[in-house]
């Protein structure tokens, strides 16, 4: 973010929100390391934030409101469905790619003429994956630098899962790892790929491992391993969930951790 805070209060407030650019964030951390009163002010802000997040009332939509919103849309008819499939060929390319992205299963209905569009989409997805890898690493680094790796600190997935579910529009799979030297630190809500995602944080020896999860449509995919700015990454899609794992572990250990995450999750 390029906007600079005007006052110290704004600076600290943006700091606890993780909204300072990395350079300012690090500068403030260095400053705080040698300044007790500054550290106390930051702690104070974090406590306030926590008491609001945990103590204030979240007003969920009453059931009758939910029901009346769902009634805003007309009943779907079989004819309407059929015409929507038949209409695909006439639709502008952009609309089709949006539609495909939104309902990937319907891709099997795609006409030959759509192959070019699909190729475009694939290329765009490749670019999107690269950007996503950068974002995943940045988020992991930001959290470990900010010493704010979890919003909910608990080694018990029965505590972490409901906490995350209450703050997200999905319920993420939350697992502990049964690896020697592995500790489950808890979870936080993060923002990736244009949406809030669940971030689960583990400590493996001296290394941090962050596992990001969010719902995704598309075909199941086995882990793809990568390397980004000195960090190991892996991503896969299973059970309707996109997974991205990132760590500063070495490659072999990282693969062991990824295997363990996948096994725990499959065993749930």
């Amino acid at each position: 973010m390029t906007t600079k805070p005007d006052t110290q209060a704004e600076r600290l407030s943006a700091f606890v929100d993780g909204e300072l650019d990395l350079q300012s964030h690090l500068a403030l951390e260095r400053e705080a390391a040698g300044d007790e009163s500054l550290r106390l002010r930051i702690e104070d802000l974090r406590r306030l934030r926590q008491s609001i997040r945990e103590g204030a009332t979240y007003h969920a939509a009453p059931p009758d409101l939910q029901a009346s919103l769902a009634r805003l849309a007309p009943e779907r008819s079989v004819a309407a469905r059929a015409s929507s499939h038949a209409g695909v060929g006439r639709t502008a390319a952009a609309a089709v790619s949006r539609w495909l992205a939104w309902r990937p299963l319907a891709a099997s209905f795609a006409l030959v003429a759509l192959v070019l569009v699909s190729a475009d989409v694939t290329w765009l997805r490749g670019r999107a994956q690269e950007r996503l890898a950068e974002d995943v690493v940045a988020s992991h680094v930001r959290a470990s630098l900010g010493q704010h790796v979890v919003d909910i600190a608990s080694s018990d997935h029965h505590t972490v899962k409901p906490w995350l579910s209450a703050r997200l529009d999905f319920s993420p799979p939350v697992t502990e790892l049964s690896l020697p030297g592995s500790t489950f630190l808890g979870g936080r809500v993060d923002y990736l790929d244009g949406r809030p995602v669940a971030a689960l944080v583990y400590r493996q020896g001296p290394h941090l491992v962050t596992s990001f999860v969010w719902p995704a449509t598309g075909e199941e995919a086995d882990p793809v391993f990568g390397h980004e700015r000195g960090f190991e990454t892996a991503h896969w899609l299973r059970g309707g969930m996109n997974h991205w794992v990132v760590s500063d572990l070495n490659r072999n250990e990282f693969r062991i951790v990824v295997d363990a995450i996948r096994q725990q999750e499959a065993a749930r």
Partner: protein
Amino acid sequence: MTEEVNWRRFEALALPHADAAYNLAKWLMRNDHDAQDAVQDAFVRALKYMDTFRGDNARPWLLQVVRNSCFTWLKENHPAGLTSIDDEEGALEIPGPAGDEPHAIAVRQDERARIDAAIAALPFAFREVLVLREFEDLPYKDIARIAEIPIGTVMSRLARARALLRDALAPGARPVLREVPRPTANGRA
């Protein structure tokens, strides 16, 4: 075709955020009936303009529509409630607890009510950025879009909102708080 796609997208992208929409409306309107009306109005408009939405996370977009519904309604019905931001240096006035029990006891008995009251007492402009940040965990750039203000203003209003809340919630601050009538924007007594 368009209508069918529109409402399928509405169902997939907008409806899941009904809770977020109502939560924002309830905090902005400060009563259930007006909040429900604002959400209804917002979702009708969202359905109508679904085809203008691009992307797959409709929550900030939808919250912008909800916020506009609330803002428009308040401007027409309780304009005074929107202008209190001028009083930036004023102390936060927390409505007194219902009944005549001593303030301190009520406060100790109900920490949640105390935090809720402190947030509800924030001027509209501070309340909206705080709710979007703390309840919805939105990044500053989304809050800026929703509230139609620059990112720098999001930053300063959040800092100010937190300063007001911290003062209001600090144990030692209680004696200096005055009991005041509930704000007029609050439809219920």
